[in-house]
């Protein structure tokens, strides 16, 4: 279970996830949570049919905690947990995991990291032994760190070959410039080059804080498994958690257009973004509903206009990336280099109209019904339930969010949704990133705001 490997994108899932149209159906019940003697939180969601077992350590700290000179430190530390233990070399570890048919993954986000091992439940003992060996007895060696650094530096260069990914990275880097959210999770060239065994070991010690972690178990387990968990994981020592650095973001002023020139681009990637919301705002559900009308799914206003009516793109969507500190809102699409001007004009006009006039009562009802109807699908499996419950814990939100979801969605009023739209959607102050051919794009967007031109190679850093 790759819990939260995409936590940001998932806040919508939570937002859509609570109600069955069958009133008696309540999937938010078949799970348990408890604390070990050292304070480590444990969540267990059982599976009765299929023979699998997923073990995941969720750490509420991520790349935003990387020191200035070591951007990429958390990613490296988590990845190196999978590259050898005190009794296994990297190759032995890989062999022992993969001979079980199991999947192993380390992932890092801005304020979240995880290590997940998932395999077949009849390998329960082996899975638990391997998982605990990686977490409790890692071995960080010069050889593996050197190998990781060389490979990661090459992969950073190869990001330039992924226009869709790169466009998103450019938007985030410019929105969060100078803050702990600015850099990619895997780090910068300089940050990765600077990594050494001492800082890796120190970061490991910092991350392993029971007060700041959850152990998530999903699947079939045997009797006695709970005792094993207590015996093994209560060994992690408690320590004082370090508060993340405050972002101190400056407000955006006006529309800033960044053309990222890629002369051979067969298509232009477009991102339109501004700061978003925090999870604890009272209008959170209203904002999500409003965004669904704007840019989620085939019936959204953006898809209807830009794709269905005009045929300008294959895909267009809007989303809120919600983080513990301020996340961001983004509209994402791609189109021909020759049609960027038309596409942007249409989007901005639509977005401005959306923000000033709000949604209609018909759209409100349709979206409310849809959100309620989706509930059983979004909590269909034990993994999906665990995933949603963990997101709530990550943001410090009560399970009532899920338990009372239907009545809360149903009770949303048009006036309140439209007030939230006016407050949190901002078509006047934004960063527009266009990754494509400058020679074709620049003449088309001159009237839309001040333009700054950069080379895509500038982001190889």
């Amino acid at each position: 279970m790759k819990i939260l490997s995409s936590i940001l994108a998932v806040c919508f899932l939570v937002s859509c996830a609570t109600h069955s149209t069958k009133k008696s159906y309540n999937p938010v019940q078949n799970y348990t949570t408890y604390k070990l003697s050292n304070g480590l939180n444990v969540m267990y969601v059982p599976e009765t049919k299929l023979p699998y077992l997923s073990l995941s350590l969720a750490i509420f700290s991520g790349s935003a905690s990387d020191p200035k000179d070591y951007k990429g430190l958390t990613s490296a530390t988590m990845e190196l947990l999978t590259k050898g233990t005190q009794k296994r070399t990297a190759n032995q570890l890989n062999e022992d995991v993969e001979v079980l048919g199991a999947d192993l993954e380390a992932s890092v986000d801005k304020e979240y990291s995880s290590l997940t091992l998932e395999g077949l439940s009849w390998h329960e003992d082996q899975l638990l032994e391997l998982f605990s060996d990686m977490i409790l007895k890692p071995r960080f060696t010069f050889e593996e760190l050197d190998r990781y650094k060389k490979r990661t530096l090459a992969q950073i260069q190869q990001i330039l070959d992924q226009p869709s990914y790169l466009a998103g990275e450019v938007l985030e880097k410019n929105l969060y410039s100078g803050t702990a959210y600015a850099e990619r999770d895997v780090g910068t060239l300089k940050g990765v080059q600077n990594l050494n065994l001492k800082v890796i070991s120190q970061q490991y010690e910092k991350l392993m804080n029971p007060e700041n972690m959850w152990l998530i178990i999903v699947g079939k387990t045997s009797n006695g498994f709970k005792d094993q968990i207590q015996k093994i994981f209560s060994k992690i020592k408690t320590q004082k958690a370090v508060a993340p650095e405050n972002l101190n973001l400056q407000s955006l002023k006006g529309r800033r257009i960044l053309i990222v020139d890629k002369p051979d681009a067969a298509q232009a990637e477009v991102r339109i973004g501004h700061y978003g919301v925090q999870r604890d705002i009272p209008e959170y559900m209203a904002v999500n509903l409003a965004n669904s009308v704007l840019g989620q799914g085939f019936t959204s206003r953006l898809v209807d206009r830009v794709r269905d009516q005009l045929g300008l793109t294959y895909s267009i969507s809007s989303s809120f990336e919600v983080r513990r500190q301020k996340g961001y809102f983004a509209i994402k699409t791609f189109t021909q280099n020759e049609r960027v001007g038309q596409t942007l004009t249409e989007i901005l006009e639509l977005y401005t109209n959306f923000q000033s006039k709000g949604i209609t009562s018909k759209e409100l009802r349709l979206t409310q019904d849809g959100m309620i109807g989706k509930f059983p699908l979004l909590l269909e499996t034990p993994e999906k339930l665990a995933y949603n419950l963990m997101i709530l814990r990550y943001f410090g939100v009560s399970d009532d969010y899920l338990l009372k979801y239907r009545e809360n969605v149903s009770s949303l009023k048009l006036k309140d949704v439209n007030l939230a739209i006016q407050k949190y959607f901002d078509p006047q102050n934004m960063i527009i990133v266009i990754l494509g051919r400058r020679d074709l794009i620049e003449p088309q967007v001159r009237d839309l705001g001040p333009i700054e031109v950069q080379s895509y190679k500038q982001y190889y850093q």
Partner: protein
Amino acid sequence: MKTVQFVIAMFLVGVCVAQDSLSFLVDKYKLDNGLTVLLYKDSSVPVVSYHTWVRVGSKDEEKGYTGIAHLFEHLMFKGSKKFSNKDYERILKEIGASNNAFTSRDYTGYYVNAPSEHLETVMELESDRFRNLILTDENLKSEREVVKEERRYRVENRVEGLVFEAINELAYTVHSYKWPVIGYISDLNNINLSKAKEFYKTYYSPNNAVLVIAGDFDTEQVKKQIKKYYGDFKEQEIKRPSYPEEPIQKKSRETVFYKDIQSDYLTISFVAPSQMSPELYAIELVGEVLGKGESSRLYKKLVYQQQIATSVFSFVMSNIHSSMFQIHVKLKPAKTKADADRIKEQALATVWSELFQLRGYSVSPKELLKSQNKVMKDHVDSLKTIDGKAYSLAMNEAVLGDYKRLFTDLEAYRRLRAQDLKMVAEKYLVQSRSNVVLARPNKFK
């Protein structure tokens, strides 16, 4: 085939999972008009998954009109006699459904996942567009532009897309698997309303489709509804084109193309047996041993030991007429052309050497066990959701001809011996049958 295996399993530690815990009861029948229906009842969650698969894909297209199967899939969302496209999407959103479709070389699949209480609504929507689709010039024109943008996104603006396209163009000389499912832009421009209508009439017939409904429903009631919505849908003769048989390749082929990329992307591919062939099980496991995971042979050599690649993987792209065994290697960026040439030659030599080993020597018992366990795990993953189960049933019935393969394939993998893997490697993974595609940075022109 990976999506389909299952049932008993007792791999590594001899634990046996009872057959009935991994297989499930399916009610299969045919309407008089030839529509095959599979019903799988599971009331654990109040949802249904509704899959309609049609036995038509890009292999059925004619030259000059490539991409019509996929473009037609798009047109299926543009409105029918009873429901305009806006009504269709609005109703699905209102009931909390999610829906989409996909096209391959051999089949086209449509699905809706919805709260179970709205099953009849879904059936009414889906049956109407299969019987009474409205095709207009305006819709064709607009959707053609959408598909062109999809092509630029999936193929032309990413090296992986270009490489996949180049592999099939190189490995097939006469068979229609040669062209891409999404089609070529010039061919998309050729498709007119009359061609689209002809395509609909030729292939969208009940006797060429499989309907799978999985989830929470009342079986008798659903059967009545199926009769009501599909019963008087007339069957017709399906006239398929002839598929030229691809001659056995006698000599290795190579192609190189240049793009503004940072590093070489190297692939080595071989035409492999049909998805229907018993040999496919063995060659899939060869793919696992060679390039799946960090303990695979090629990963250990190219990424871990030699450190000349950032990623490597191998797999079999399975199709009805013939499959494709592919090895993909993303090499490390090089500063000079000479360096790039050296790295590429080293990688190729390593791949040839590993293929030589697979042809000459049996894989170890541990490697065999690992690949079988991985197949098992992938299978468990594929069955976690109601949609996953419906998809797997549809794949087996529509493509392989019998949904029961979902419950028997795993045993076929389990029975394989190291010798079987060696035999298929000897037969198919030989240098004279190889197709090497290299994407290079422009600076090395």
